[in-house]
């Protein structure tokens, strides 16, 4: 017989809801940081939101672990080994969701089509989203953040953070898609 209808332990439900409540705090603090704290950029606000949410997670989980005497091992597994990765994954999803609206070319293109009932022709897109201008802006940002070093008309890799990410992503592309670029001919 299914036992789930008999479960009524409030601490168990609190452990379940803790990552979701922590995410809500994360999102709230992040939005407030961007709107009302001068000098806070988006990535800094993500950091503040994440820490605030993590603090909420600790506040919700610790009392449950402290009270839960006999079931301590299970409580520890749920509170720490399950809830912490769940909260981190949810926070990552939230960051992606926010960044999509700010940097995704596809979403901006779609938004322009939605706002233009008579439609948009390709030429208008290519003028507005000039590939060269896009690339130039991206490179400028990377130079500013020292991810790229420009010297004597050549570019060199600077900080290694994006290099590591690129290596992992391109390895994943080879393993999953069998190619390194969406512009390559597929061989499988």
């Amino acid at each position, binding site marked *: 017989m299914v036992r*789930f209808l008999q*479960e009524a332990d409030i601490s168990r439900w609190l452990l379940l809801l803790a990552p979701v409540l922590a995410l809500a705090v994360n999102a709230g603090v992040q939005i407030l940081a961007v709107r009302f704290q001068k000098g806070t950029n988006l990535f800094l606000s993500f950091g503040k939101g994440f820490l605030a949410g993590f603090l909420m997670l600790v506040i919700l989980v610790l009392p449950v672990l402290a009270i839960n005497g006999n079931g301590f091992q299970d409580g520890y597994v749920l509170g720490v080994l399950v809830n912490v990765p769940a909260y981190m994954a949810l926070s990552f999803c939230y960051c992606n969701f926010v960044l999509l609206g700010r940097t995704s070319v596809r979403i901006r293109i779609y938004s322009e089509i*939605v706002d233009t009932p008579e439609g948009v022709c390709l030429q208008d897109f290519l003028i507005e989203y000039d590939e060269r*201008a896009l690339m130039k802006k991206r490179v400028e940002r990377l130079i500013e953040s020292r991810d790229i070093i420009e010297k004597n008309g050549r570019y060199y890799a600077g900080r290694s953070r994006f290099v590591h990410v690129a290596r992992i992503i391109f390895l994943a592309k080879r393993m999953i898609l069998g190619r390194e670029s969406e512009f390559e001919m597929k061989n499988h």
Partner: protein
Amino acid sequence: MFVLLASLLLLAMAFGLHLALWRIRLPKRQIPALLCLFVAVFCASLATPFAWNNSLPNILHTALLYFSISLAYTGIYSGIEYDSPTLSLMHLLAKSGMNGVSCDEAHRILCERPFVRTRLDALIRSGLVAQKNGRYILAGKPSFLFRFILEYQKLYGPISPRG
């Protein structure tokens, strides 16, 4: 322990199926297919005795961990499916090592990748946009998800210049 082990097992099965199926035949719409796969694996697990003999909080907690990691992977997957200009450039620079890449060559290589056109093709493939008389128009009603993403941005103020 059930929640942790069940989640890890389900994730392992889902990723294994993902790799196998993608090698057999690449889906046309990869991200929707990936999401369907994750949902299908979880739903299939609900039909097993392990689910029947467990409490609702345990099942929901398993779902929370499983789907949060699945969604996080799906978010990363768009970076695997499509070329990111930044990562493509960094990959190129990493391969070139101490030699570096000339500015002109880097710009040329990046501009050879028609990012805007592939995004338009992706929107057409997903049924959100149609082409008519040489113009791109909305196909059907605006996507709720895209609208939600854009509306959410209003909480932050104006979007920074393109790029």
